[in-house]
């Protein structure tokens, strides 16, 4: 369990944002943390849709229950978030 910074690239946003999360967080929790700084701030909400996370440029998202520490991401790596 350790504080871990990621770079959030949220679909529809105009800027990469620094988001502090925890290595024990699931990717669903990581997505929620990223959404807090983009959805309803710079990106319109899409109620009822799930926010997914994937490595920048990857085709497939991480499983929602996957822990951040299992993704192989390094500190400040950029993660893409999008409404599914």
């Amino acid at each position, binding site marked *: 369990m350790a504080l871990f*910074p990621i770079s959030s*690239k949220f679909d*529809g*946003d105009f*800027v990469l*944002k620094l988001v*502090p999360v925890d290595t024990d967080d699931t990717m669903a929790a990581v997505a929620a943390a990223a959404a807090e700084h983009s959805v309803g701030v710079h*990106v319109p909400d899409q109620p009822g849709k799930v926010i997914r996370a994937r490595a920048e440029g990857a085709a497939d998202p991480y499983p929602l229950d996957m822990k951040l520490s299992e993704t192989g991401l390094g500190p*400040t790596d*950029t993660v893409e978030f999008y409404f599914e």
Partner: protein
Amino acid sequence: MALLERSAWYDLARSTEWTPSYISEDELFPPEMSGGEGIPAEVWSTYDEPYKVTYREYVDVQRQKDEGAYSVKAALERADLYNNADPGWVSILKEHYAAVALVEYGASFQEARYVRWSKAPGMRNMATFGMLDEMRHGQIQLYFPHEYVSKDRQFDWSHQMMWSNNWVALGARHFFDDMLMTRGAAETSISANFAFETGFTNLQFIGLSGDAANAGDFTFSKLIQSIQSDEARHAQLGTPLLQMMIENGQKAKAQNLIDIAFWRSYRLFTILSGIPMDYYVPLEVRESSFKEFMEEWIVTQFMKSIEDLGLSKPWYWDIFLRDLDEHHHGQHLGTYSWRPTLWWNPAAGVSPEERDWLEEKYPGWNDTFGKVWDVMIDNFVSGRPEKTVPGTLPMICNVSQLPIVGTPGRSLKDTSIVFEGRKYHFASEVDKWIFEQDPERYKHHKNLIDRFLGGEIQPANLDGVLEYMGLGVVSPGGDDAHNYAWLEAYKTALAPAG
């Protein structure tokens, strides 16, 4: 007393030179200070400045320039521009003076380095006048805003900004240290005089001069015209050096220096010129868009001067042309969103009429950047102001030191590398390329995010960041220039029917 005609003595005086006998040439002109390695010794004396001036002539002309600018200022002080001008225009003045005044003073050191270290006698002579120019620019651009300090403490940043850790200061210092202070005299002249001054000072000093006159600020208009008349002269310092490098087999090196300096200058000017021109200048007095100014002064005129020398457009030309439609719009969204980090009050510039203008000048703006503004406007009119300032920091480029922005849904991306175990993020492929040209030069610098994550900013929250950057210390941070009056049209439009 009779004076000799200038032609009778000028060439002898300007080319005063000697051959060292007690020390070596490299001791007199250390390569790391003088630069220009590989240019034969006999070539330096052929440097021929494109203008000739004597000290007597210089002082006389400069006195007249100062007299013109100071007398306009004195005559118009009673007009009380501060209270009568559009607040967006006042913000331009705050941004300009803080970003420019001490940089100009710093540029006097750049010129002084030529005076001592340049191996070309003609350049040493010419740079003496350039050095005096830059002292004048530093002094006059501190004196002019001083009258506003008692009315508005944000004007104190004119003197404080470059000593602070404000994020704009970090970007400006990184840029000017790279371009003005840390290369050999020959290389600096190509980066700073040719690429930066020839191209980009026109943008700020001529581009904004017309807008200033239209906005009724004749003091500022006269001031920056006066400064630009010096810039146009000493900017020519670099051209003879470029010719010498090209003629002596160093065309690739010259091209590389221009490619680096051009991109870095452009990206910095998206903040200094791009945002004000397209968002702060009152709509009714705007002369041209930032993109139109860039097309006139940079794409057409500066590129012609490059091609006349037998050089090429920078390799990233297509990227640059696309960027003109994008980057400064993202930076404006960023500066407005994080407005508490500014020393000026940003104008939003997105009333319905202003959006029509943006859409006309930048087709597609409403469907991209406009959609982000829609979310912010909805928050404002729905009584959620706390949602209009992000609760975290933006990621910052390790070269430009600016937030990493892009067109929403299209071009936002991270460009990163790992070098010697450290991860670096860049705002574009070009910024990454610049880093890779000389990693030793750039690798030690820590951007704002590196400092934040490294524990240098305490407390490690937004309040701590603001204090670190001098907000609430030198002056209050920024808030909407028009006190959100521009939202009235949206409140009416979004009001419930009936």
